[in-house]
């Protein structure tokens, strides 16, 4: 039985808007030309593949439902109270194979000593075997290395196989669109004569397939990133955190854009008292430390939730609402930057000849703003969106640290770092939660940064002839 979270709904709304925008842009030269430039750059295309992967994972994680447990007498399905997502179906193994407590990556033994009763009845303190990690091995000390190596090599093989299949499919489709035969399309891709830099896309797909297959293979017998304090697989946590990071990076922008665009353009175009009011608004908002606004809003939300406890059936829904609120409040605190840029641009554009010509025709003010100003500031908006994305993902981690981020029950890299940091004093130190969170964050942010660089160069009017 499906259940729709607010953020799920908004995510898919955003997805459809982007698809719609893409279809619109195809018909308009000035919008599609810069994207074509982006498609030529190898680093941008590699990043795009990585981003695509993350987005897919996030989308799968955004379809939630109550799983059915059984059918009762009247042949109706009974649903558990638990909420799962489609991603959980894929990651079922990782989700359910929990240990008791910490364990290191690829380990077969738990991280802390326990009282074990041996066969001869004597109790000793030793590292117990894990329930799931290394379960197929009889003698982990000697066998694990060979087992791991075997699994890695098999993973590489599978990865190469799968990537070859995918690449061949793509080339097949390409050959149809380019109207050449298969060989011709392959040659074109390898020699970089196509519109898009397929070569780097194929290379990235291969590397990613190999890595995914290795990880899949290893995780059948081990916890690839170990387990955390309550025994949950760290890799699972990191993967589930992807959605949180994506939601914060994108929904915040969704909230912020309309304000920034409308206010910025109006302030620059109308000047006078409209400008004064808007400048007053954003100076005032900017003076208040963002931390305070966020903290207060989160507190507000908690009061609301405790007063209306019945409306929420589950922890997940409460956490989801808090996530939504966080996005809204982040949006409200971050619209001022873009607004200022757009105001400056609107001040310049209102004097440009074609705007004067439109006024000489008697075209109304709002029509002028929509038809002439807005399309000519879209490049600033586009650059701002992609630039802010990485900043927001990084900010989430920091906010969670000072307890005004996402709900602690929600999976997020910030929460992973926060809980891991508190345990850093342990000897030997538990490093794998931190590592997993940082690695995943780094990959997503790096891909976003590289992609946004290419977007910025493509859309910057000074570098083009537009």
């Amino acid at each position, binding site marked *: 039985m499906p259940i729709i979270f607010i953020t799920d709904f908004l995510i898919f709304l955003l997805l459809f808007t982007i698809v719609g925008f893409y279809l619109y842009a195809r018909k*308009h*030269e*000035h*919008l599609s030309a810069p994207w074509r430039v982006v498609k030529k750059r190898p680093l941008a295309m590699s990043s795009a593949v990585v981003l695509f992967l993350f987005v897919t994972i996030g989308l799968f994680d955004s379809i939630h439902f109550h799983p059915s447990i059984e059918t009762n007498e009247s042949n109706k399905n009974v649903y558990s109270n638990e909420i799962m997502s489609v991603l959980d179906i894929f990651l079922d193994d990782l989700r359910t194979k929990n240990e008791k407590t910490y364990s290191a990556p690829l380990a077969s033994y738990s991280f802390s000593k326990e009282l074990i009763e041996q066969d001869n009845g004597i109790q000793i303190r030793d590292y117990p075997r894990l329930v799931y990690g290394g379960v197929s091995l009889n003698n982990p000390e000697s066998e694990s290395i060979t087992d791991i190596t075997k699994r890695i090599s098999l993973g590489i093989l599978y990865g190469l196989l799968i990537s070859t299949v995918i690449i061949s499919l793509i080339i097949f489709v390409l050959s149809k669109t380019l109207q050449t035969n298969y060989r011709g399309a392959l040659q074109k891709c390898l020699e970089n004569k196509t519109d898009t830099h397929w070569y780097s896309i194929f290379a990235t797909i291969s590397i990613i397939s190999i890595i995914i297959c290795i990880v899949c293979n290893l995780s059948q017998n081990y916890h690839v990133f170990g387990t955390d304090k309550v025994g949950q697989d760290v890799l699972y946590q990191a993967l589930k955190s992807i959605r949180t990071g994506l939601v914060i990076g994108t929904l915040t922008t969704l909230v912020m854009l309309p304000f920034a665009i409308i206010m910025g353009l109006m302030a620059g175009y109308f000047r006078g008292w409209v400008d004064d009011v808007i400048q007053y608004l954003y100076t005032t908002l900017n003076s208040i430390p963002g931390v305070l606004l966020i903290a207060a809003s989160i507190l507000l939300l908690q009061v609301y939730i405790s007063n209306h406890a019945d409306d929420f059936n589950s922890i997940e829904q409460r956490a989801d609402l808090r996530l939504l609120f966080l996005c809204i409040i982040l949006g409200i605190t971050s619209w001022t930057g873009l607004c200022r840029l757009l105001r400056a641009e609107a001040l310049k554009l209102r004097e*440009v*000849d*074609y705007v*004067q*010509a*439109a*006024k*000489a*025709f*008697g*075209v109304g003010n709002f029509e002028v703003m929509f*038809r*002439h100003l807005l*399309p*000519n500031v879209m490049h600033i908006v586009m650059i701002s969106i992609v630039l802010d994305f990485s900043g927001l993902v990084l900010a989430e981690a920091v906010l969670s640290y000072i307890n005004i981020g996402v709900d602690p029950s929600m999976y997020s890299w910030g929460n992973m770092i926060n809980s891991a940091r508190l345990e850093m004093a342990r000897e030997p130190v538990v490093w794998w939660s931190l590592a997993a969170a940082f690695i995943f964050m780094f990959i997503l942010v790096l891909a976003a940064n590289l992609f946004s660089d290419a977007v910025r160069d493509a859309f910057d009017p000074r570098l083009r*002839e*537009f």
Partner: protein
Amino acid sequence: MIDNNENLLQVKNLTVSTGTGGRKSNIVNNVSFCVRRGETFVLLGESGSGKSITALSIMRLLPTAIKITAGEAILHKSDLFQLPENKMRKIRGAKIGMIFQEPQTSLNPVLTAGQQISETLRQHENLSKKRCIERSIELLDAVGIPESKRRINEYPHQFSGGMKQRIMIAIALAGNPDLLIADEPTTALDVTIQAQVLELLKKLQDDTGMSILFITHDLGVASQMADHIAVMKNGSIVEAKSKKELFSNPEHQYTLKLFNAIPSWEKRKKEDGMGKIDRSDKSNLLKVKKLKVYYPIKKGVFKRTVGHVQAVDDVTIDLYAGETVAIVGESGSGKTTMGKGILQLLEVTSGVVTYQQKDLNRLDSSSLREIRADIQIVFQDPYSSMNPRMMINDIIQEGMLAQGIGNSEKERDENTVELLEQVGLLAEHRYRYPHEFSGGQRQRICIARALAVKPKLIICDEPTSALDVSVQSQILTLLKKLQKEHSLGYLFITHNISVVEYIAHYVAVMYEGKIVEQGSVEKILKNPENPYTKKLLSAVPRIELKSNLL
């Protein structure tokens, strides 16, 4: 070739290209010429002819994407293109000086004039600080900047455009160069200032004996400055002669085309006949009476108005159907502000603008909107006058939609096609974007856009100033043709006297916001009374052409 001792610079087979492999293209193609000692050699050409690139090549200051692929440039017996960079630096500024087109941006805004001149001095000569300052003051004197002792410590923005160019010349002269390369040095200056700078260059040449390689697109300037001229087109020299020979006997087709494109009195007489130009048989369209546009100067904590900038000061002028009234003035004269004020595109401080007996200032917004169809505008810069993100079709139809012309999309489409054909473009062009067209074509589209709402009066704000001479003549011809067909009135704002000669019926001369003189075109151009008008007319560089060429 003449005796080698007389040649200062010999350029042989210069080829400059960009791109690599299959995408290589030549910007300058096998160009050869010589500059003799003490003479001025002019490279004449329109935009894209490669003249500036040629000049930059000699200095080896080309941008990274563009490279010299063949040729030699021999100065003092050594080939400049073969010198290592550190030796070339000794030539730059010392043996060859260069001045550029845009004085506004060519000087470092955070260094004083004195500092920038001294920089050249210290680079090439070993002078003490005191001697540097003395020499800088001498140079400022030599280029005609008054109060040089004080002004040496001033920053570039404190000088006017003409004076900035003089400072540039001083910087270039500081190293005592044998050759001065001047890349369109007066193109961005007003006509009267241009005359002063050209005179200064000639005087300096006489004093120092240096040669000048002068780049320009203006035939009048070439005629005034040159000893020898080479005409360039598409990267090659099509004709190279002494000035006298070129102007009396041009041979190449392109040169002839250039000469024919120059607007002038004679050309007009040839095209229109010798009829009298007067207003007696025309109906009155526009009456401007005592128009004032003042901008307040605000000072103090509470921003009290302490004075006004009088952009347009008490202007009175009339316009009749089917005639062209030219508003002539230099930059800052207020002519563009007046045009926008008439159109109610900016706020008018006082005065009455009457169109067909209706006071435009007093109309409410919907009546004003209706009248807007009758008065339209064509702008100067073809690159910023159209929204780069709209198709031509939409650009032309924007006015139609706003004014309710054309009852259906089909009708509007038909109108658009007709308009495009009227201005000399094709129907299929309407699905393209502005950047796909050249400057001249864009101006045609702008004219079509203005015509779309069937105006009676078009304000043309320097519509050809940004265009090449040959393109300019096409646009002027088009404007004349449209005027005849539709009985349009033009308020033609310009600073170019030759264009006025060619197209205007009535002329008003503006200076610092006021009209200092107005009258029929014959009176103003042949018998000016006001001293400013006289000064303006005398500053225009004239071409001594034989009349049989026209």
